[in-house]
């Protein structure tokens, strides 16, 4: 049985990243913590899928994790009466495949600068490999969370109803 500690380490750093990135979106303060929790759940789930369940394709694991984040986001949205995207979107940011994108750029420029034909071909293949991985993971991220929004389409617009922010204006109702 493999140790679970790598998963918890992964979840901890994902929560840290989720919290920081969420702050830049200026969400309500209590939602920041929900985003951090979701980020850790999502990233930890993806990590577990790849490491323990041997899912060979990172894009599929990302899609599953993103879908899970979307579903949990909807649940948290109901509890906190906040639009689900406010909680879920920042939680997805730690899963953006930045390192693959960077490697794709690196190989692209190496391909352009290389004179030797064999190395040039190698760089081109590497570029396409990383580029397609980047695109597929990014799309999996976006589509995974979008599907939950499509499934819970009406609910996603309803969660802010009776949020309590404007309760003091309820007294006006009887005048109109």
């Amino acid at each position: 049985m493999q140790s679970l500690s790598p998963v918890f380490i992964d979840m901890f750093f994902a929560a840290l990243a989720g919290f920081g990135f969420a702050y830049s979106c200026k969400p309500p303060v209590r939602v920041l913590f929900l985003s951090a929790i979701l980020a850790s759940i999502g990233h930890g789930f993806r990590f577990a899928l790849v490491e323990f369940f041997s899912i060979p394709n990172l894009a599929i694991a990302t899609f599953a994790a993103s879908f899970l984040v979307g579903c949990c986001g909807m649940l948290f949205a109901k509890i906190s009466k906040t639009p689900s995207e406010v909680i879920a979107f920042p939680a997805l940011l730690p899963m953006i495949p930045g390192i693959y994108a960077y490697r794709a750029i690196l190989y692209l420029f190496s391909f352009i600068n290389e004179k030797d034909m064999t190395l040039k071909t190698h760089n081109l293949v590497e570029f396409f490999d990383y580029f397609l991985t980047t695109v597929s993971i990014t799309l999996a991220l976006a589509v995974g969370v979008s599907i939950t929004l499509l499934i819970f389409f009406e609910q996603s617009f309803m969660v802010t109803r009776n949020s309590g922010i404007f309760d003091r204006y309820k007294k006006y109702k009887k005048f109109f």
Partner: protein
Amino acid sequence: MQKPDIQELSDFLIDYVRAMGSIGTYSSRVNRCAKRIAETFGYTLTLNFSFAHINVSIVDPQDYSSFRSYLITLKPTHLNFSLVRDLSALSWAIYDHIHDLRVAKRCFKKLIRIQKRPFYYYIILQSIANAALSRLFEGDFGTMIIVLFATLLGTSLRVLFTYMRLDERIQCIICSFLSSYLTFWGTKFDCTQTPEVALGTSILYLIPGVFFINSVIDILQNYIQIGISRITNVAIIISCVAIGVYATLTFSNFRFL
């Protein structure tokens, strides 16, 4: 409930749609919330979205001669999810119990009063987040420290540039170059075994992830025109980030490959 004057309602809806369209939410939420408000006051609203503009048409269904149409120019988008929640809640509050346009306007004005958060929180938290991200990409402790400082520099400059109203794309090129170049210098001290991860992660705070997700949602919810426009904008920003990294790679003679 007394029906408000169409001009008065139009003025309010223009402000509402402009605010809602400039804070980083997807189009169908803007559409739903604005329509809900118009219907509460007995009018029909149609919105047509493009990247920098929204076309607003308001008509009284009982008197088609009472009609207004406006083209709203959106402000540059600054993410504000608190405001997304509050404006969305306001539309429901208007629908459920605030049936007076004057009260609705007063609530709206209170909400959009800018509540600034300390910029140094943004800088510090963004830097810690990026450093944590480098760990997720299997960077070592040295990488985390380098990325932390590179992001501190980049985000500080970004705050300054935003204050100076510098174009977002220019901001991305400069911040990307300086963050990655500082990372390149940091790796020279041999404090990290994963310089490639450090360089790759140091610029990730510039990637507009939320905009990308919004654009995919727009496309999936049949707002294809604005979805594609937003994706194009994201691609331009990512290209600007790539230009900054390319400059660093050129100076470092592609040592990371």
